[in-house]
């Protein structure tokens, strides 16, 4: 077990290092790094400052050492578009909004997927099951950003139930959270369905029925508790996916989180901010993956020996 964790941990560090290498080399290999790092309208003193900050007059390997030490200290330079902010400061400022949205989306996707998954398993072969299958199929085929626009059109423009965009009370969060969570609903639902089917077939469920427990109690208490293990570990994967998925959702709903920040930064050619967001998100993404793998290995010993 320790060996497995150590190996996966090293692998994750390696992936993060590759990502930083990509960010570093993209700015430097493609011609003059200052052209990449600064927009066209930047003045000479700006060029001077950025060049000094990253040591761009020095040889490449020195530049890399400078980049790496600064990155490890969380220093990704100053933002060009948002004056007076460091790139990392901006990320820190926007991250809570993203986490809030992702958390709420996770909650919504569970709240939708769990009952449907259980129902589909209990009523296997009925129209309910087919309906669940169709939902799953749609979940994989709908472009998330388009779903966001459709929801906005129906519920914000036509019915006027929710605001179209921005951040405020809970009513601002519902449409973005459904959009973000939608893709996960299908995956969680299928997982719940298949593990429920396994449990429904087992001996102890027959016993609870023989004992004369109500069907409701058998399904929702005894079966669900045992079927929840696989979906539970899956939630950690979702957390990682939701983080990167927020880039799309946030730009649909103008949700002022890190995802919107990075899209705005790309449009304004604010490379310092882009690299900060990318490294931070990659870190979160890679380490949630690591966490899931460890969790899986803990629950299912077969994985460790593969």
């Amino acid at each position, binding site marked *: 077990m320790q060996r497995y964790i150590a190996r996966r941990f090293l692998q994750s560090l390696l992936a993060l290092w*590759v990502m930083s290498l990509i960010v570093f080399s993209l*700015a430097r290999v493609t011609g003059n790094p200052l052209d990449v790092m600064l927009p066209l309208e930047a003045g000479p003193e700006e060029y001077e400052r950025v060049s000094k900050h990253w040591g761009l007059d020095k040889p490449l390997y020195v530049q890399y050492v400078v980049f790496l030490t600064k990155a490890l200290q969380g220093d990704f330079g100053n933002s060009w578009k948002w004056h007076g902010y460091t790139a990392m400061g901006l990320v820190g400022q926007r991250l809570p909004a993203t986490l809030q949205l992702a958390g709420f989306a996770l909650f919504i996707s569970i709240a939708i997927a769990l009952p449907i998954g259980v129902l589909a398993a209990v*009523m296997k072969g009925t129209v309910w099951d087919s309906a669940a299958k169709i939902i799953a199929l749609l979940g*994989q085929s709908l*472009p998330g950003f*388009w779903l966001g626009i459709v929801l906005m059109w129906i519920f914000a423009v036509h019915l006027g139930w929710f605001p179209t965009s921005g951040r405020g009370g809970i009513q601002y969060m519902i449409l973005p959270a459904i959009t973000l969570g939608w893709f996960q609903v299908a995956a969680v639902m299928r997982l719940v369905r298949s593990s429920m089917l396994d449990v429904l077939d087992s001996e102890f469920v027959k016993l609870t029925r023989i004992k004369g427990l109500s069907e409701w109690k058998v399904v929702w208490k005894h079966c669900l508790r045992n079927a929840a293990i696989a979906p539970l570990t899956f939630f950690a994967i979702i957390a990682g996916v939701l983080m990167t998925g927020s*880039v799309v959702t946030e*730009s649909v709903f103008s949700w002022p989180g890190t995802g919107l920040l990075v899209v705005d930064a790309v449009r304004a050619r604010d490379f310092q901010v882009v690299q900060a967001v990318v490294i931070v998100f990659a870190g979160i*993404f890679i380490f949630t993956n690591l966490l899931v793998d460890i969790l899986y290995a803990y629950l299912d010993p077969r994985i460790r020996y593969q």
Partner: protein
Amino acid sequence: MATVTARTLPWYAPPRVAHAMRQVRRYPVVALSLLMFLLVIPAVAAPLIAPYDPLQGSLAKRLKPPAWQQGGSLDNPLGTDKLGRDILSRMIHGARVSLAVSMVAIFVGGIAGTALGLMSGYFGGTTDALIMRLVDISLSLPTILLALVLVAAVGPSFSTVIIVLVVLLWARYARLVRGETLSIKQRDFIARARVAGASHTRIMTRYIFPNVVNSLVVLATLQVGYVILLESALSFLGAGLPRPTPAWGLMIADGRELIVTAWWVSMFPGLAIMLTVLSLNLLGDWLRDHLDPKLRHV
């Protein structure tokens, strides 16, 4: 009195519907015809069937609604966008863009992944370890972010999109082909080919490769839908194809700010993406079940 369990409740699908659904699954007629209708025919014959130039609009006809709405006309059956370009024509050319991007990306990614997977499985040892580490790393990179940083550095273009997609796609082929190669290379005919003096390259291309083609076809089909979704998301974010390419994702992005006044600008391209990807997924599932059931978890 017998207790009524949930399974005996009368909610079974009516037999005719159930039968129809079984038929649809057995032969992917609906999926195939949707695909032809939405993707292949428009893509192949775009200049012939599109009523207008997808890039040329007339400002006199800005934001016309679709034909069945008040103010719409059959000249522009699905309406026009804010530059007066015909939505239907742009969608038809958009099919060409989607198909071209996914074909090129899957072809290049598939060839690279297959070659590396063959080597990894066939030679084993250090080659294998090295390639598999690369696979692990590339599978753990966050796609959208990779695309954003690439676009921030070199700007959006067709080749940027292809590079991002290839970096993302090759690893799955490599992993799949390696696994199959490992088991094929144990078989007798490989040893005999070796004895007969066949070179390593010849064994890999002539003896092992034909045996993994089925799995490759299934994986590629399953990935077309995924690639179309991904490309449209990237284009939507401004990290995919540059304007004014008639890409479905870009058209949806154009319609986002017009959602209050002109819903049709983003609605129709979105429907096109959804139906195309849906039918590709159905087709992929069907192919997998018939050609290669062991791929269930891909």
